[in-house]
């Protein structure tokens, strides 16, 4: 307890001691000496040396690493962008090429279809023409056959009628001449009628 009291007394007395330490001289703002300058330089040199070894190199290193990282990232990003642009250009070229090819295919299909249509049309026309020709030929043959049959029947009928009228039989030569003569007349008559 006594020690604590003594300590407290000393502690309270310190301000007075501090005041007593002042010499009472007028304070001089230029107070100091060459030793101040020398100590300052020594302390500063120590600071420069130690900070130059332990503080600034890590800071500079981190800055350089960061600059390198940022530069690398920017370079990488630039390369990636250029690659992406190149890829995009390739894709665009491929798309354009595919579009051209598709257009060409469609155009070719259209041309082929037109050619097929044209060919089918011509074939149909040719077939129709053939059918018409054949029909005409058949009609002609049928007509000729009908006319011949008509001539034959008419001749026979005429002979029969004439035989009956003149009541006489003709010799085969007369008969043939008569038939031939009748046919000539009928052909002439028929030609004049058809023309």
């Amino acid at each position, binding site marked *: 307890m006594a020690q604590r009291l003594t300590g407290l007394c000393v*502690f309270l007395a*310190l*301000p007075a*001691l*501090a*005041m*007593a*330490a*002042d010499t009472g*001289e*007028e*304070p*001089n*703002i*230029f*107070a*100091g*000496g*060459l*030793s*101040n*300058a*020398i*100590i*300052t*330089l020594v*302390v*500063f040199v*120590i*600071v*420069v040396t*130690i*900070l*130059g070894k*332990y*503080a*600034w*190199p*890590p*800071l*500079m290193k*981190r*800055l350089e*690493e*960061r600059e390198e*990282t940022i530069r690398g990232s920017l370079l990488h990003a630039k390369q990636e962008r250029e690659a992406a642009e190149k890829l995009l250009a390739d894709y665009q070229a491929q798309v354009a090429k595919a579009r051209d090819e598709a257009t060409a295919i469609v155009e070719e299909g259209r041309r082929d279809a037109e050619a097929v249509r044209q060919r089918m049309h011509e074939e149909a026309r040719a077939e129709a023409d053939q059918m018409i020709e054949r029909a005409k030929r058949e009609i002609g043959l049928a007509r000729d056959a009908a006319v011949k049959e008509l001539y034959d029947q008419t001749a026979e009928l005429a002979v029969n009628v004439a035989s009956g009228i003149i009541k006489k039989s003709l010799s085969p030569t007369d008969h043939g001449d008569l038939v031939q003569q009748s046919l000539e007349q009928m052909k002439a008559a028929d030609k004049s009628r058809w023309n």
Partner: protein
Amino acid sequence: MSLILAADNPLNHVVQHTLWDLNPDGGPWFMVPIVSNHIIMQVVGALLLLWWLPRAVMKTAGTDEINRHVPRGAANALEVICFGLRDRIFEPNLGRHTNRFTPLLWSYFFFILISNLLGMLPLSDWFYFVPGHLIGGTSTGNIWVTGAMAVSSLVLIVYNGLRFNGMDYIKHFFMGPSFLAWFIALLEMAGMLFKTMALAVRLFANMLAGHILLAVLVSFANLGTTIGQILSPVVVLACVLFNFLEIFVAFLHAFIFTALTAVFLGMAVNIHHDDEHEHEHA
């Protein structure tokens, strides 16, 4: 504490208090202080820097590929200050020599800054029980300290001017007509000396003035019971505002000293570069 303030001359808070002087009878102008509050604060500031800065700059958000590049905590502020100085002040002046001098110039900045900022703390009041005001004070409010820093700056400038330019560095002081060359060289050399010494005076005067102003303001609160009580709120408010200003000034003058050193150093090491620019403009 108020007892001390009441009793003290305001200058007592800013001047050097010497405990051990090798030449105690030399008077105020011929002291050889070995232990003083400014020397102690300087050493404390240096120790703080040496303890804190290497730890602070190493702090990153993580160790993986990305986060190891991301600063954390105070390292952010340190990076902004350091690389702001390097990119905006050192690089334009020093050019290709930037990386060579950057660590040294950063050390100038932080050494002056820590001295300025430690002077902002009312350590002499907190440690009032330490005899002789040995704790506290602004070491950069001492012309011998700032003078030593300025001399180191001058040596740095001249040495590197000679190192990188040889005799061309000396020759570049001699300009104009031959009959004026010596005179101009003398003026140039004196100008360089005064410019660097102005660094010392500027830093010293600003640190001293700011702290004297604060000490005077505080002393107003101790003018007497009634007047002191009336003035106290105003004094406290003014002290708070001036402290903000002083924090700014602490950074500003560390910056000015460093920036001007970089400018003068750049002018010394890049004399050919300047000539090339002149030829280009011509």
